[in-house]
């Protein structure tokens, strides 16, 4: 199944794109989506412990199951204000 991955700020720079479509197996979790990204862009690994994840524009956990057509966002530590 296909999901849309959104990447922001430095994560976007590391991957060279802010939005990518990924093919993942049914039942996959956000963590599996992330691991798949890290294989392609190893530089992302440094954010393993500090990033946040959102599924369909709601904060989520890495254990969250994802579904066909979902939007999965990975975000580095925030710096608004």
């Amino acid at each position, binding site marked *: 199944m296909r999901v849309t991955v959104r990447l922001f*700020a430095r994560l976007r720079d590391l991957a060279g794109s802010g939005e990518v479509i990924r093919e993942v197996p049914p039942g996959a979790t956000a963590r599996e989506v992330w691991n798949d990204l890290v294989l392609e862009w190893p530089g992302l690994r440094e954010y393993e412990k*500090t990033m946040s994840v959102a599924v369909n524009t709601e904060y989520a956990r890495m254990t969250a199951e994802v579904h066909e057509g979902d939007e999965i*966002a990975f975000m*580095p530590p*925030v710096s*608004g204000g």
Partner: protein
Amino acid sequence: MATPAVAVTHEPLDLDALAALVGAQGDGAVVTFAGLVRDHNQGRRVQFLEYEAYEPLAVRALQLIVDEAKERWPSARVAAHHRIGRLEIGEASIVIAAVSAHRGDAFAACRYTIERVKQIVPIWKREHFDGGDVWLEGATADPEDAAAREKAYRIACA
């Protein structure tokens, strides 16, 4: 169109309009805050900042913060607008207005809001300085982190 209590926008921010939005109901205190682009940071001379947001989630996070403030200080009402895109030195990146019957709650709700924005709103700034640029990174965003929320509350009530 009515101004929403929370917003993420490319347009210049209007603190007076925000204060008017929350402060028109006979209360005794309004506290406003504007965060401005500073001309220096960590020993670097800043040229300008570039803000990026995950907009739909940023709006939800701002709404969550305003709701949290309401829960902590039931008599207070808070509005917060964050600007994104390229901002020059001295321009406002965020404006917050908090109104309440009495000043204590208004000050606390305003301070709480900016502290929480820095914790959980998915917005990032890239600092362009003399000689380069860098993404600034602060807190790992987790709205369910009770310790972070308590920290913001303690700062607000200090």
